[in-house]
């Protein structure tokens, strides 16, 4: 049983993991201080014959100290997380002219639509694959999330990507894969009896094989009409 984060395959994943471990260290310190402190006090001040508790209603100094320290820590964490958040989800964090893919969730599958020859969504020549999500490595990708029925959540653990798909909304997110490989899309929002099996293949390909795959697919569309 390896309790750790799965291998990370995206640029944002690096930031997220760094922050995760940072918080883990900080909270671990807080945790040790409290747990050790409690246990030590329990043993050190256990009731014994003749010893009497110290009669005190508190100490202003102590109070200020243990109000100030956590305050500083959380302010630091808040600011730091805020900065990362802006880089991941902030409106102006979105890369220019990135490959834009539309993902439409329905009970219980993922419909992924790629722009056709004109390299942008809409205008007829797009092609759609079901439960398959192919992206090039080392290139930012924008996903426009939609849902046709209920709320689903687009989750790719190894890319540290998660975003709800909400009916009536088009929600863009972006990410950049850093290594090729095969992963899974999982649905992370309860969406009905098929929620537990609403998965899809993710294939992060190197540029070349992505191109060939892309050509085949769009060619297929051309052929179709």
């Amino acid at each position: 049983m390896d309790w750790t984060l799965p291998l990370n395959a995206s640029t944002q994943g690096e930031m997220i993991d760094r922050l995760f471990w940072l918080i883990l260290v900080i909270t671990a310190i807080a945790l040790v201080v409290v747990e050790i402190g409690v246990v030590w006090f329990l043993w050190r001040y256990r009731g014994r014959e003749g010893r009497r508790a110290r009669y005190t209603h508190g100490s202003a100094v102590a109070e200020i100290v243990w109000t100030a320290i956590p305050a500083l820590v959380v302010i630091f964490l808040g600011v730091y997380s805020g900065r990362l958040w802006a880089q991941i989800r902030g409106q102006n964090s979105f890369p220019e002219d990135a490959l834009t893919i539309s993902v439409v969730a329905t009970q219980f599958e993922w419909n992924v639509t790629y722009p056709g020859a004109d390299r942008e969504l809409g205008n007829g020549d797009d092609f759609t694959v079901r439960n398959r999500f192919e992206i090039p490595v080392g290139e930012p990708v924008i996903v426009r999330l939609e849902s046709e029925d209920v709320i689903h959540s687009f989750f790719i653990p190894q890319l540290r990507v998660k975003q709800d798909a909400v009916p009536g909304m088009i929600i863009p997110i972006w990410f950049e894969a850093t290594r090729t490989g095969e992963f899974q899309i999982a649905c992370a929002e309860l969406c009905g009896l098929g929620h537990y099996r609403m998965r899809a293949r993710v294939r992060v390909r190197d540029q070349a094989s992505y191109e060939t795959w892309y050509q085949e697919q769009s060619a297929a569309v051309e052929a179709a009409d």
Partner: protein
Amino acid sequence: MATIVAEGTGTPVLELEHEIPFIRKYVFSTDHKTIGIQFLFMSLFFLLVGAVLSVLIRYQLAWPGKAIPLGSALPETMAPDGIMLPEFYNSLVTMHGTFMVFFAIMPLLVGVYANYLIPLQIGAQDMAFPRLNMASFWISVPAGLLMLASFAVEGGAAGAGWTSYAPLSARPDLSGVSLGQQMWIISLVVLGLGSILGAVNYITTVINMRAPGMTWFRLPLSIWALFITAILVLLAMPVLSAAMIMLLFDQTIGTNFFLASEGGQPLLWQHLFWFFGHPEVYILILPAMGFVSEIIANGSRKPIFGYHSMVFAIIAIALLGFIVWGHHMFQSGMNPTLAMSFMISTMVIAVPSAIKVFNWMGTLWEGSIRFHVPMLFAVGFVMMFVIGGLSGIFMAATPVDIYIHDTYFIVAHIHYVLFGGSLFAIFGAIYYWFPKMFGRMINATAGKIHFALTFVFFNVTFFPMHGLGMGGMMRRIYDPQQYEHIAGMQDTNVLVTLGALGLFATGLFFLVVFFYSLFWGKKAQANPWNATTLEWQTPSPPMHGNWSEIPVVYHGPYEYSHPEMERDWLAQNERPDVVSPVAHSTADGS
């Protein structure tokens, strides 16, 4: 001078109490003590229900698709020949969360102890509105039974999670559940009404019926916590009711508040639900914190450390609780800039919580600690709540939440705060006030065994969930095997389930201990823990009307180990001439 009123009038009353036939005393009573006890039995029953559901959940997660032992007893619509259906799993999760939050923990904290303690601890004879009080109980019972009945109806019980996100919860055609979902809504609206009536009663009582000398800053922290909690219930519940009614209309009469078609907004449901939902989770922890303060002061034989900052921390947590709801919606498609502000307010809540944790440690420091069973659970609370609280910080950090949102990391958090927190405190409270409620003690050895087993199995069950969450295991999934990144962690899932079974067995052990002590436990005196607050200065159990005469309060609530007495406790209603004026003025913390 060490004699207290109870020893004067206690015993005879005790005898007298026992001649009143059980039934007549315990059904349609307006006595706040009886109503508190009625709530206790109701909510323990629902706690058991929630526990049974959780065991079914765990069985499925450890051995997906294996036939449940005796499962063939279940109807085809739930588990054909013992093998659980996905839709039934969804109902189990939903109902487990619903029962635990609304029908077990909330009534245990508020229904039971607000009713039982408020009049006794502030020195009143009953609630301000006894009949209203009875109503609030008899409203809650049918609500719970309705919820339970929903398992039996066509389409099964609600299955959209205890958060019932629309549109899933609003569209029978998409969820396959219609009547069950509607019963879920109606049940909670009814329960909400009951809680609001209760809250009105508690608030009025605390404001208006404090005994002479019981100034605001002489109130026991349990009362402060219950008072602030009542305000949270009062202001948060109606918003849930409003949302629920809109959801019900979407379900039944074809409105479209939460349906994307024709401009409805699915996210509106989430905003309304969590505007209630986050205050709700503080409703589920503040009273627990109050009881723990009470018990730790008593167990350490020391005045609580920093009484005033404890009070302000409670108030601060309650206020902040109203402006953090968005932290449940970081991945919902809510405006990212808005998410940023919710993150900050959420993190700030760590500060008042820290104050409380460190003040409890300060109370232990240089105490003379008694390890009675309530104390064990209270200390267990501090140790476990901190874990749950700290895991909250991970989720509060929006970027990290991208990954751990809706994974078992959240489930771990839930249970560390709600079980390691609330439920530990509740067990402590049950052991602490049992003698007062029933005039009998719970056997200490049995209690210590119960604590040890609970503590161990609790951590075996829920600590590994952090690991599952880090591994990326999603919540509310019927079959983990479906995913490559989770399949490798099946052994952890089995471990968790074994822990859960142990925990459940421990629960049953407690059930036995509880009922045994109820009838055969040894008789309790008025003040078995040598405690200072008012409820201990009257017989166990107190007579109807609580006092032979209304007590007069001269001190703060936790005057333990006062240097000028050789007895190590000084009741709130003991005369000033017992102690010097100097000590007296420090006593009310001014």
